[in-house]
């Protein structure tokens, strides 16, 4: 039984809600801001794709709950009890944990204050699931940058096995010092303050915060709008190095090939590729090699989303999928105008927004620690899905 994607939503630097995010993306906006870290002994300013200011008074938890509530508002109480919740994040509520620790330091001092006061990756999903009356199939995924891509994949597999009828997938990354300063310390932030995946002058990544959400279902969508069908996917492991992909790209190629096999789709039938594209020297080299292996020099039109909203780490799987599907649903395929290809890598990102072709799209998502994910999602003509 196929898995359909009924609803997608996102909050990222481009806006709060799918409409402004898709509009900003297609207009190639650059909402980069700058964050001062004045509390450091050696203060730094860092470019960051921050969420636009919240006009409500809602806190971290309320924002997530209302996004999720909106996604399941069309489901009855009984349907919700048959809805899994899959949450992928590399930081969960570390933002709140850091705030509590700072307050504790001020109150009790260095020796007494408890660092990392909130523990339990699964707490957020439990809270949201309880609030919305969802199924007890509430799984949280923590595999660094593939966290929410893996959540999408297992949402599909839970539906396939018939354990639930719907699956709400949430990808989450909110601004926190550990992630931002951690990446800075690894020397991965772009000194030129621009992400240029697969370009000769690429010099690293920029980070961003975002929430992405997808509602997957076994139910056939209503007629009258394009159908989005999750065809399959795969996870693969490249344990060449903890912090960089093997530049030969063989493990990455393998995970893409497995995702295609799982989806029963041939590489030449793909109509578009959402690349991972972190614009770091070695990872782009690895992804380019993988694309070369899979497509043999005839890669379908490819596009990267990180230049517009930053690398949103564990959220990027769900956020970039939601954004892409938002564009495809409006008949457009995203593009990266102005990013010229490195002649060595030979990955040409689409230079202008084109009408979205119907057919299967590939979604790449790779992580530190060698965890790699590839998904295949098809844009089908209205009411004529396979």
């Amino acid at each position: 039984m196929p898995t359909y994607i009924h609803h997608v939503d996102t909050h990222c630097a481009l806006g709060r809600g799918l409409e402004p995010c898709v509009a900003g993306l297609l207009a190639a906006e650059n909402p980069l801001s700058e964050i001062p870290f004045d509390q450091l002994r050696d203060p730094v300013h860092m470019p960051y794709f921050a969420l636009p200011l919240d006009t409500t008074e809602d806190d971290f938890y309320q924002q997530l709950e209302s996004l999720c509530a909106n996604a399941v508002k069309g489901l009855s109480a009984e349907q919700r009890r048959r809805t899994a919740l899959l949450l992928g994040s590399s930081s969960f509520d570390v933002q709140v944990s850091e705030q509590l620790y700072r307050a504790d330091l001020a109150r009790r001092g260095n020796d007494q204050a408890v660092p990392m006061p909130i523990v339990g990756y699964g707490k957020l999903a439990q809270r949201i699931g309880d609030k919305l009356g969802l199924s007890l199939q509430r799984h949280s995924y923590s595999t660094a940058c593939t966290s929410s891509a893996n959540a999408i994949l297992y949402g599909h597999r839970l539906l396939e096995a018939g354990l639930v009828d719907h699956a709400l997938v949430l990808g989450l990354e909110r601004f926190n010092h550990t992630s931002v300063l951690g990446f800075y310390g690894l020397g991965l932030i772009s000194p030129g303050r621009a992400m240029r995946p697969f370009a000769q002058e690429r010099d690293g990544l920029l980070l961003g915060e975002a929430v992405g959400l997808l509602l997957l279902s076994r139910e056939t969508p209503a007629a009258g709008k394009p159908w989005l069908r999750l065809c399959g996917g795969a996870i693969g492991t490249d344990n060449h190095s903890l912090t960089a992909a093997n530049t030969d790209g063989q493990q990455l190629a393998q995970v893409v090939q497995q995702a295609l096999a799982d989806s029963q789709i041939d590489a030449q039938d793909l109509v578009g590729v959402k690349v991972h594209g972190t614009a770091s020297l070695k990872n782009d080299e690895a992804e380019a090699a993988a694309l070369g292996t899979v497509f043999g020099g005839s890669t379908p039109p490819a596009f990267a989303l990180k230049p517009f909203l930053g690398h949103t780490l564990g959220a990027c799987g769900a956020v970039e999928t939601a954004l892409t599907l938002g564009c495809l649903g409006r008949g457009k395929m995203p593009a990266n105008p102005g990013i010229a290809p490195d002649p060595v890598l030979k990955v040409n990102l689409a230079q202008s927004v084109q009408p979205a072709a119907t057919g299967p799209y590939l979604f790449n998502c790779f992580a530190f620690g060698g965890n790699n994910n590839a998904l295949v999602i098809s844009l089908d003509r209205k009411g004529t899905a396979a």
Partner: protein
Amino acid sequence: MKVSSSYSLLHTIDADAEGPLPALEPLITRWHGSRIRRIDRYIQLCIAGGLNCVADKPLEERTGLYLASRAGAVSTSAKAMINTEQKGEMPKPLHFVNTLGNSAGFYLTQLLGLTGTVLVVSQEWLSFESALLHAWLDLHQGRVDAALVGGFDEVCLPTAHHLERLGEQTTQLTEGSHWLLLEREAPASGVSLEAPNWFADSQELAHWISTEAPFDWIQTGFGPSPDERSLLASNTGELQAFTRPAALHGVFSGAALVSLCEQLAEGQKSGRALHLVRGTEGPYGALVVTC
């Protein structure tokens, strides 16, 4: 799912202990001669458990690794947070990479030569069952031929801080690493597991047990309340509780299940058993084990 190997490591640590914690390196060097540098205790727990479960047996090429942790790499995350919030420094690069969810899995896959599916999942006190479900999905749908399932959670020093994080007062803390190597069902004899089930409350659980009964015995990974005792006693035979004075260990249910599987494998018990766990205030997890 057929159990082809198991291993469990459970340390009880006094709440007023100042360290050091029990050494894990000897458990690793038993299978891997040279010392592995730059790994923290959380990663050591993963590697020690995984290597001892596999115990040098050849693995299927398509073996998936399904890791469970309730709390993740708390100790190293705390160190990174002390650097950024207290000292006004960057997190050390090594601390930062070790805070990431799949760094532990990275080291284990490298040692075992695995290149397929690797997951790190969590679901509060039922995290081990969550990993089992993911393994079951992939075995059942033919995506892997074997599944190595491991759950681990660490105790962090100082213990006073750790108790505050857990929101508990107790005299003893528990840490450990619990593992099962599973294969798709084979006709041969042995211990096998069905897919785990979740229940919101004791009524839902009672209803399910009445449809699944009889069981030869039930093992709870918690100290059952009088109500729970009567509910379980009315439906089945022998009831045993696998508990510790303080089971504040995120994947304690993994310890309970591994123990159950080992008792069955060693012939101490036989028949159809029920592994039953619950969080501090529900929900319940239940899984049928047969031999």
